[in-house]
């Protein structure tokens, strides 16, 4: 009962159309047309704003100028290098965060005492804005790719940890009692009971962390001299090429959007055996 409502909310595009919704859009093509025209409308407003000159062209170049930069950038090795640099830092930190965060989260989530003991500590550490550690890391580690991955790791480990913990706690008492009653060995219990029931929640954590990783990597690049998309934005803006800066920002958006889509697909494939209860 609960899952069916969540599912409807979580994937509005896929939910069976209710009478009202069917009357609204004439099927898929109508919806796509509608969405495309909304995008066009926003682009038009953007162009009008840029042309009207309310905002200086260095702060907001027109869409024509921005998208006109892409053909040249695509042919430029530096562009792909920047994308690769950002992704490398993000992925390294992300993978580390998963390797550390998931097991720790599962263990602390399984044992109530461990969860209680770590709660306050994790709460405090989690609300810590990681990027504020950057000056300290720059002092200790210097301006190296390690700094970038470390900051990304710290930013990603908490969502992963908390979601794994949450998932492990979601094992229903009945199942937990049954496992206890049959004296299932500990390792088997983790592998066959806790991990599967925590997977939906873990996937949510991975999705959050994946988005965060790119965000933080770019943030670090903006503030340091480390190469990557963030650094390119700074360079372009300082060189009065704000159209290029915007092109890089849009690139970052496309990366973030793609990660979101990919993780949704992965989530659906991995969890095909059960309704998506923990998505939002």
């Amino acid at each position, binding site marked *: 009962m609960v899952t069916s409502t969540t599912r409807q*909310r979580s994937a509005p595009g896929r939910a069976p159309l209710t009478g009202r919704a069917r009357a609204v859009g004439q099927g898929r093509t109508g919806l796509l047309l509608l969405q495309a025209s909304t995008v066009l409308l926003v682009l038009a407003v953007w162009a009008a704003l840029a042309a009207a000159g309310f905002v200086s062209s260095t702060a907001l170049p027109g869409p024509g100028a921005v998208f006109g930069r892409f053909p040249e950038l695509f042919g430029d090795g530096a562009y792909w290098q920047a994308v690769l640099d950002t992704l490398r830092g993000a992925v390294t930190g992300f993978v580390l965060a998963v390797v550390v965060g998931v097991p720790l989260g599962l263990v602390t989530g399984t044992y109530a005492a461990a969860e209680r003991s770590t709660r306050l*500590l994790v709460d405090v550490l989690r609300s810590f804005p990681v990027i*504020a550690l950057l000056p300290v890391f720059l002092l200790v580690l210097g301006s190296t790719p390690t700094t970038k991955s470390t900051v990304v790791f710290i930013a990603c480990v908490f969502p992963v940890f908390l979601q794994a913990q949450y998932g492990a706690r979601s094992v229903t008492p009945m199942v937990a009692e049954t496992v206890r009653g049959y004296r299932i060995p500990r390792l088997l219990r983790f592998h066959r009971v806790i991990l599967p029931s925590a997977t939906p929640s873990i996937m949510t954590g991975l999705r959050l962390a994946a988005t965060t990783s790119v965000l933080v990597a770019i943030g670090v690049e903006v*503030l340091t001299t480390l190469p990557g998309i963030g650094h390119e*934005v700074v360079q372009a803006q300082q060189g009065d090429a704000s159209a290029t800066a915007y092109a890089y920002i849009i690139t970052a958006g496309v990366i973030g959007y793609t990660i979101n889509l990919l993780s949704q697909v992965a989530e659906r494939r991995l969890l095909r055996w059960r309704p998506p209860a923990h998505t939002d």
Partner: protein
Amino acid sequence: MAAHPSGALWKSLLHQLWLPALVLAILVLATAGSTSFYFPPATDVLATLWRGLVHGELVSDLAFSLRNIVLGLAIATVVGIGAGLVIGEIPLLRRATAPLLDFARAVPTVAFVPVIILTLGIGSGPKIFLIALGSLWPILLNTISGVHGVNPAVHETARSYRIPWRLRLTKVVLPGALPQIFAGVRIALSIAVVLMVVSEIYGSPVGLGNYILQSGSSFAVPETWAGTVLIGMLGYGLSVLLLAAEHVLLGWYHQRPPRTRRTKPRNEVTPSCSGI
């Protein structure tokens, strides 16, 4: 919490406090008399923090940062909830804007920091704008999904009784969406703190971000750590305040038995869940 007998309360406090206390003790002991340049004794850091707060060199930085966060977040909340209510209430609009809003959320606001600050200046206006811009998306998207998630039967009932729209908004739609909205504001708060720090490190004459940058680049390590700790405390303090507001406004929601909840508080371990 209030329902607990006080003995149980103390016990649960003890359960939660021993590890943080242990970690703090280890930190203090491990760094006591430390001669390492990068890791000064924790007591030195705390003393520096205390001095800065009492003598006022940190107070103006703190006030500047706090003001930017609060103003930016307030603007984002008002705009986000307002626009979210409209978009969520009109199905056509919601479906038309969905991909656009998803993309907008995926664009990292930190990348806008150099563009905005280099063109609009290092004052607090551009920073508030950046914080509002970054915090807007989670609030907006969560409001939309909260409004959309209000039980259709409730909606139809309100409609068939011809409840005036203003009453419907304040008594049906807004309360129904409030749990989701709060989840959005909570995400927005963490984004706001990050943007505050980044925008101040990037270019600012005052602020906590500027403080840690300046002290870091002049190798005043205890000051850097003190500023970093203060930012952490600021982030935690604001999230506790938000949680308190949520408890006041959403008490009715958390008191419902879990089975009838529409949504769970996202990845959040609120004190109210401690018994479950």
